């Protein structure tokens, strides 16, 4: 008799595989092909990979939108995945920072970012007869996602969500394919580190990116966010990591790394990483 944990795991695997079969069927119906908005994150990497497996390279195009809010390390990871898994990939520059509505950083900032992204990708998809897809998954549907509105305005489809694939499913199925994103931390854009109402500038985004890169370089692993509170950087990391970085020597290294990135003050969040932490801070969602 199988152990309870093994039974549970097997059932989860079977559910994930069922949902993946539904995804494959969904993709097969897009006979002219698909264009995937591609960030190199967990969801869009998996979607692009399955699309290529299902439709072949000739009917799939992954497109990266590049801007100051997209971390360089994420771009490099996206290119590596595209190369390694044979995903046809192009890039376009997006300029959401030039949009005052975006730069003002309202709580629906993501809408203006996605509006800009899809305004660049939709013409490419239209010209080639491709269905426009994003990597929204089933879990995202219950989250604060103003960017989804911009997708609907451009008829962007979200097949992962439509067939019920959750983040856990996607990680599990990504692992079966050997995708390096299977266990990767989630990777929202750099603007997500700025509290709503703090204007989004190239300088602030670069400051956050430098600080997070510096923390990776000294050994911080797992989910990590450097939240920008003016001259104060509030570091969120996995709760399991906090003990290690509160050690006097380690905390000095951490603070030095962040100060050298341009923050005058450094604080370590005692609760640890929370996805959507700034939504809680702004009262957009409950804590």
């Amino acid at each position: 008799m199988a152990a309870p944990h093994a039974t549970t795991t097997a059932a989860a695997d079977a559910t994930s595989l069922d949902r993946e079969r539904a995804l494959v069927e969904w993709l097969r119906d897009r006979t002219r092909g698909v264009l995937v908005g591609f960030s190199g994150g967990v969801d869009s990497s998996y979607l692009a990979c399955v699309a290529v497996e299902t439709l072949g390279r000739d009917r799939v195009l992954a497109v990266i939108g590049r801007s100051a809010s997209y971390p360089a390390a994420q771009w490099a990871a996206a290119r590596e995945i595209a190369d390694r898994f044979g995903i046809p990939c192009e890039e376009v520059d997006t300029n959401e920072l030039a949009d005052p509505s975006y730069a003002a950083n309202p709580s629906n900032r993501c809408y203006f970012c996605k509006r800009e992204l899809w305004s660049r990708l939709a013409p490419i998809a239209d010209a080639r007869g491709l269905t426009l897809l994003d990597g929204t998954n089933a879990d995202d549907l219950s989250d604060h996602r103003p960017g989804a509105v911009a997708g609907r305005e451009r008829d962007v489809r979200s097949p992962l969500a439509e067939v019920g694939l959750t983040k856990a499913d996607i990680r599990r199925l990504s692992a079966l394919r050997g995708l390096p994103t299977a266990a990767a931390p989630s990777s929202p854009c750099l603007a997500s580190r700025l509290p709503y109402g703090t204007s989004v500038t190239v300088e602030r985004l670069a400051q956050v990116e430098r600080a997070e890169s510096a923390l990776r370089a000294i050994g911080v692993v797992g989910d990590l966010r450097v939240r920008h509170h003016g001259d104060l950087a509030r570091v969120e990391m996995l709760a399991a990591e906090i003990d290690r970085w509160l050690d006097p020597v380690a905390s000095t290294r951490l603070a030095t790394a962040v100060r050298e990135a341009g923050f005058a003050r450094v604080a370590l969040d005692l609760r640890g990483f929370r996805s959507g932490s700034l939504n809680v801070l702004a009262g957009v969602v409950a804590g």
Partner: protein
Amino acid sequence: VSSPVERRAALASALAALGVPADVDADGPLAVLRPRDAAPSLDAATRAAVVDAARRCGFTHVALEL
């Protein structure tokens, strides 16, 4: 606990009771602790107690300045 000043004072008092003497800066629902000791002992249980105390004082976020 309602006003920002009262919330900061209440949290500072709660921290002292937990053996973590610190001054409290506040930015809305974010509390930033400035410890009076150079290296306060903050094991997991103490951290949880600090987070809980902060929540009771109306702070959704609490961070320790390094």
